[in-house]
């Protein structure tokens, strides 16, 4: 192997290593199996921002639903309050969880029958203009079916 090729390979390996610290990581993405009576459900995931700059999730699109919105659920004195939010901030070096009872994606006007075990594609749009394509698994929470 020539020295030049070797150098190129080393550079490529270094760049590949660097890129994982340079992009937002999405893990544990899942969608609750929707109740067939209604065309609505929720999606969850963990978003990790290993970079040194804050980033915000500002939009989500999916072929599985006409509308995907960012929602926040809060509890106060036993009362659940749900609202649509414009952005979900992920500070530098932080990890934000979208989970039942808190932040979540609301999927409305479902275009597909979302069976447990199937996959839903999402394109996550961030405020710096970047996008992340992910696939979430459809599943029923424990105790169901």
């Amino acid at each position, binding site marked *: 192997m020539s020295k030049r090729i070797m150098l190129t390979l080393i550079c490529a390996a270094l760049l590949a290593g660097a890129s994982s610290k340079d992009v937002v990581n999405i893990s544990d993405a899942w969608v*609750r199996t929707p*109740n*067939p*009576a*209604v065309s*609505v*459900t*929720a999606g969850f995931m963990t978003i990790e921002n290993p970079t040194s700059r804050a980033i915000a999730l500002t939009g989500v699109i999916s072929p599985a639903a*006409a*509308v995907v*919105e960012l*929602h926040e*659920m809060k*509890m106060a004195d*036993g*009362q*659940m*309050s*749900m*609202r*649509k939010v414009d952005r979900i901030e992920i500070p530098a070096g932080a990890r934000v969880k979208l989970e*039942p*009872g808190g932040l*979540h994606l*609301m*999927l*409305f*006007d479902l275009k597909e029958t979302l069976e447990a075990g199937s996959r839903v594609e999402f394109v996550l749009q961030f405020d710096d203009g970047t996008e992340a394509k992910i696939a979430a698994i459809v599943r*029923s*929470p*424990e*105790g*169901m*079916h």
Partner: protein
Amino acid sequence: MSRRLLPVLILISLVAAGCREPAGLHRVAMPVGEFTLVGDDGNEFRLSSLRGRPVLLFFGYTHCPDACPTMMSKVAISYRLAGEKATVVPTLFVSVDPRDTPPLLKQYVSYYGAVPARGLTGTKAQIDAVVRQFGASYEIRDTGSAAGPMVDHTIRLYLIDGEGNVAAFFDSIAAPETIAKELKAKL
């Protein structure tokens, strides 16, 4: 602190710890007696028709994307933990959303097969009266969502005894084990 006082204090704190209720369980003695709503079969429903057996009750709405499905799956786990006998205890899903019709409620609750659930609705006056009886609240708000109005509402699972009194309620942090234990104790 005197040496004599210390064991007494330890004993008191041990007893207090033993008496502490599990997280999310609130024991109350709240007489409800009777209420009238419309069942998911379209017929009038009276709480007194279930007299003699415990009942679980929960306010929600079918288009609730997260809180209601989360509570319903927790209730499903609770029934499984409580065993076969607990299925005589019905769960009443009282909708606080005027968009929910009896047929829609019937389809919605039937999805939660492990829960012997009945959907209930009614006129706004009927629903408001029941919400007041349980010391609960709800508010229909337009938050700019394409899915239409969001309904903020009380997330409590009420346990009603066979005489129409609320004996306890569970808030959103209550574990299914806690709910199952109280269910079994009322059988």
